[in-house]
């Protein structure tokens, strides 16, 4: 079955809106996760910490260059993801519409190719 990744993309404004009522946000997200579990579609869910806690590894040069914190010009920041096991893109989108996301944020819905769509080695020709 196709898997879909729902990628949460927040902006500074939406993140600020979420932080303003963080407890309510957490409670609603927990309910939403439960709902997806009861529907049998949730495979994984993670929220990401403040990008200031992370680093960026840049491969533009010969050797990778590591800088702390978020990437300079990023307007939208990945805030977390849900990995779903559903039958169609429409179903993934329908779940995405139900995410208790903060106003101003976006959810990118991306399909995970199935195993048999990815060439395993040079001997496999499809």
């Amino acid at each position, binding site marked *: *079955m196709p898997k879909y990744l729902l990628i949460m993309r927040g902006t500074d404004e939406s993140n600020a809106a979420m932080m303003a009522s963080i407890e309510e946000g957490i409670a609603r997200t927990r309910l939403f996760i439960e709902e997806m579990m*009861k529907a049998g*579609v949730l*495979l994984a869910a993670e929220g990401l910490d403040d990008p200031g806690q992370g680093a960026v590894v840049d491969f533009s040069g010969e050797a990778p260059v590591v800088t702390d914190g978020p990437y300079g010009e990023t307007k939208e920041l990945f805030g977390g993801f849900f990995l779903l*096991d559903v039958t*169609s893109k429409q*179903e993934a989108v329908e779940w995405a519409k139900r995410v208790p996301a903060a106003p101003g944020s976006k959810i990118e819905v991306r399909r995970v190719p199935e195993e048999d769509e990815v060439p395993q080695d040079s001997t*496999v020709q499809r």
Partner: protein
Amino acid sequence: MGAADVEAVWRIESARIVAALTRFTGDFGLAEDAAQEAVAEALVSWPLAAPADPAGWLMATARRRAIDAIRRRTALRDRYALLATDPAVDEDIDPDRIDDDILALMFISCHPVLSPEARVALTLRVVGGLSSEEIARAFLVPVPTVQARITRAKKTIAAAGVPFELPPAGERRGRLGGVLSVLYVIFTEGSTATSGDRLLRPDVAYEAIRLARTLAALQPDEPEVHGLLALCELTAARFPARTAPDGSPILLEDQDRRRWDFSAIRRGLAALAKASTRGLGPYGLQAAIAAAHASAPSVEATDWDRIVVLYEALGRVAPSPVVELNRAVAVAMASGPAQALAIVDELIALDRLPGSHLVPTVRGELLARLGRRPEARAELELAARLCTNQRERSVLLRKAAALG
């Protein structure tokens, strides 16, 4: 919005809608009909004007159709009773009650008064939200057959006066076992198709896994629910390695284990850990066997002694000739083919699996390992004659031919 959007909302909402309407009307058949009418209306009206709240639209429309049906019925019986029976519309949704209602829906769909085929069709239709066409495709039967099964099932439930409720405590375990076996039948139809030209039908297996996940979320304290889920996840984890590009089956010993779905294995092991807390039942034991395979880097490095012990335990809690046959295969790997052949020959002597291609398949393999080639060949040819899956049959014939 197109048909695929309607189907997507329906997949998510159908069980809830049928469950809520059954509680509301006390009539499972009427609830299912009303829900189907609502989705049929959605297929017509949503492409013209998409509702702001599709899920709410479906529930409200289904509820209106249910009220219409009650009114028609009441009008026929007693026009004056109309006002008294006009049902109040309950807009409050209590999450705990919805969970119980969906469970009750699973129990009613898998009720012992129904035939096994009807249980499968009804579960996929009302709990899984599949159309008759999808169910027909899944089980390779004509659409009218599925429709007739569902219609008959609803009549049977009404005639038997099956109440819409969770089974009483004393019956709960047994009835839950009934639900699990329906889910397992659906899963095995996907993991080893009993007919047709394809070995695997992952979309059918997926429906079973999805329903098992739902049941595990609703009944988290039942070890066998987690056991079944673990068994399905661990079995499905091997799907990517089980068929060659031409669709022919690849046996466990020849599978490229790098192609196994490791995230499915991880989910299976996590479910097995939940099943293990209070001693494993039949599904948990089968999952433990699947886990022993899933954790082994190769056939040689597999803990066959443990698998033999698990099959012995399975033979005690759920004795069956198929379990004995599998135990023989494990014994062959752990202690050699001669001991295993004795187990198989005893099965044959007692005629425990008449007409099954599995017995001569295993016996042929064991004889081949013992170097008794002409006998092995005859057994594999017999197995091929008895086998109904075309893909499996050609593997058997190839093996027989290789024995010269």
